[in-house]
């Protein structure tokens, strides 16, 4: 009896789907990365203007943006074959090496994003800038989303996968 594939093996097989080959070109990766940045910017704008919008428009807009994010992030992960998120158990030695490089580069980018987030949060709370509540929401929400997607951005834009 053969053992059934683990979650990681199924995920690896899905992200390595040959029908997604058209996403694995540098141009497609750049477009997907730009699309994901666009979604994050649109999200910031939507949160920033939430007070001016009817609640139904805000919720509808967020739903659309979440769906767009799922598709762009999913496409980006398929374009990298998911080497940045998969466990080393399902990667070969070259892919595991790339994964290591991705995380060392992501660590540097993440440090910069973290510092920018902290500085913006401190500025937003400083007496000189009476930042509206929306700004206090946008900064951590967008930073968090950016931080969790940094390894995927680094893999898609900097690695040969």
């Amino acid at each position, binding site marked *: 009896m053969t053992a059934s594939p683990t979650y990681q093996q199924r995920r690896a097989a899905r992200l*390595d789907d040959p029908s997604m080959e058209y996403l694995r070109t540098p141009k497609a990766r750049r477009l997907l990365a730009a699309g994901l940045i666009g979604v994050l910017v649109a999200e910031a704008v939507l949160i920033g203007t939430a007070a001016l919008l009817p609640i139904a428009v805000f919720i509808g807009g967020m739903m659309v943006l979440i769906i767009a994010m799922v598709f762009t992030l999913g496409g980006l992960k398929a374009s990298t*074959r998911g080497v940045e998120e998969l466990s080393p158990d399902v990667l*070969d*030695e070259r*892919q595991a090496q790339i994964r290591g490089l991705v995380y060392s580069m992501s660590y540097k980018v993440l440090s910069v994003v973290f510092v920018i987030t902290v500085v913006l949060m401190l500025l937003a709370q400083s007496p000189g800038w009476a930042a509206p509540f929306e700004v206090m929401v946008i900064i951590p929400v967008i930073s968090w989303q950016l931080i969790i997607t940094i390894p995927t951005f680094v893999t898609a834009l900097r690695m*040969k996968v």
Partner: protein
Amino acid sequence: MKKQVPDEQPQFYTRLPVLRAERGMSRKELAELAGVHYQTIGYLERGEYSPSLVLALRIAAALAVPLDAVFSLTPFASMADQLYNTEGENR
């Protein structure tokens, strides 16, 4: 840390494409035998990735040749030269 892919000279030389073609194997078939992704075979064939000793041994075993028939630190003589000794005759 040393770069994996040097700018000028290759770190190693390989006969992998020739041996694989000789055996009528696809990259995917060889990759399955060696336990790696098929893309990795492509990177090895182009000299863009240096394999671990274990992987090099697995590839040599899959091709049923000694390790030094697949990978070398010095350039390989061409197959024609080796088969017909044309290099010696030309001198």
